[in-house]
């Protein structure tokens, strides 16, 4: 039920993001979703791509520090309060959200949100029990 995400360490200097995007573009890797966490010194670029292994390898070859992280993609009803239901469920069960960001594409009528939890397995179990719909990686990469 987990989705592969790659994270890239990027120094805060001009042109670095463009460089990453360029490398992936040239290699034919399609970015499906992204989020950038930044501080004054550095940023962490997180990507869901159609070919995680390939993206990781080419960025590594270009000298970037890259890691693979497992995240969870949850379908969220596209209506007011849709996200709130999920977050309240997680809160009740004391699952911490390390970070989250929205997926670019919709899944039929629903939005998709990417979550990184401190306890991924437990979070998945709880969400499934509560009837939330989690998206498989394979489906996501092809969306």
């Amino acid at each position, binding site marked *: 039920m987990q989705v592969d*995400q790659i994270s890239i360490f990027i*120094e805060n200097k001009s042109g670095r993001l463009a460089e990453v995007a360029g490398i992936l573009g040239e290699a034919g890797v399609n970015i499906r979703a992204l989020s950038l*966490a930044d501080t004054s010194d*550095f940023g962490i670029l997180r990507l869901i791509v159609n070919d995680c292994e390939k993206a990781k390898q080419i960025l590594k070859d270009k000298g970037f*520090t890259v890691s693979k992280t497992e995240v969870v993609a949850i379908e969220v009803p596209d209506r007011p309060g849709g996200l709130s239901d999920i977050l309240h469920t997680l809160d009740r069960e004391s699952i911490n959200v390390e970070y989250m960001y929205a997926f670019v594409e919709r899944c039929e009528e629903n939005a998709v949100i990417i979550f990184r939890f401190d306890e991924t397995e437990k979070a998945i179990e709880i969400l499934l029990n509560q009837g939330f719909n989690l998206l498989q990686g394979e489906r996501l990469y092809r969306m």
Partner: protein
Amino acid sequence: MIYNEEFETLPRPALEALQLKRLKSTIKRVYNQVPFYREGLDKAGIIPEDINSLSDLQKLPFTHKQDMRDSYPYGLFAVPMEEIVRIHASSGTTGKPTVVGYTRKDIEVWSELMARSFVAAGAHKGDIIHNAYGYGLFTGGLGAHYGAERLGASVIPMSGGNTKKQILIMKDFGSTVLTCTPSYSLYLAEAALEEGVDFKSLRLRVGIFGAEPWSESMRKEIESKLNICAIDIYGLSEIMGPGVAIECHEAKNGLHIWEDHFLPEIIDPETGNLVPEGEKGELVITTITKEGIPLVRYRTRDITSITYDPCVCGRTHARIARMSGRSDDMLIIRGVNIFPSQIESVLMKIEKVEPHYLLIVDRKDNLDTLEVQVEVDEQLFSDEVKHLQALAQAIEKEIKDMLGVTCKVRLVEPKTILRSEGKAKRVIDKRGEH
């Protein structure tokens, strides 16, 4: 004004005769009392009786900082511990500091040389000396303190830090002489402005600044911002502490080194040979009156030049130029001595950190800044910002704890720090660019 007219203005022939007498006695003493020197001289095939002129000094082997570390803590002391009345140690070092011991007579000599230095700087009995050098293992605070008392001035033992209080006391107590690092004096001036205190309204007249390298342009800035006469002082704990050499306020052109107690040589750091008068080289000092820990041909690693030209002040002691650098990679950051290798050993202790680092030294708002760049490889990387920030903070704390200096750690991408075959470039010092 000259504090010790007789000795400070000794005609050169008499001064040199005194130096030779004291040198011979020092060499005899260390040969008999300190195994390190006996071994060194034996190895060089020299006996103390071979020293018959000042130039015979060149036959003797050098003493290095490492020799002091190797004999840690008391191995180079030349008197029994019962005769040692004070111990100081070098600041801000990992592992073993360099330890120095003073006999009662050493403290007296030091006090006199600091008193001489105060007078050379234009201070006198009746001055209120605001001593903002750190008190403690560091020689600065107590060295200046004893000299001020010897002079008969009123000394305020402020020590470093607590800037607001420094300003309050300077204003209310009517301090006339300030002793601290040059960068701290500018920091004080700016802090005073913020407190609404105008240095021009203070009684401060003279500033005696040392313990870190500074420049002529910085002198001009200090003199105009603090409205004082700024004097450069030189010293190092291994030799004595502050007061080894000082500028006279009459000329402000080179630092008189107290030659009746110290024998200076300027050498080419590569070959070890003397360089001609006036040329730049490494300062080597032999102490010729010290009892606790006499040092023979000690490599200070400071780069300067020397002149024996007469000085307008009347002192006959040679003058060394403002220190222009180091012959090793030691950095002086806010008065704390740091070798890049020390930072490296701190980094190596932190799990997963690779020894690829770069130190950027700069000066912002008149305070030295140290940035430590550390490469983030896959071992270190986390895709959560808080983990990376915690890592940077952990390194900063470790460096502060181990080396006593505050730094900023910047995480950088791998391979951004230049690798070089041979000696890696570990330091970029931008302080000279301002």
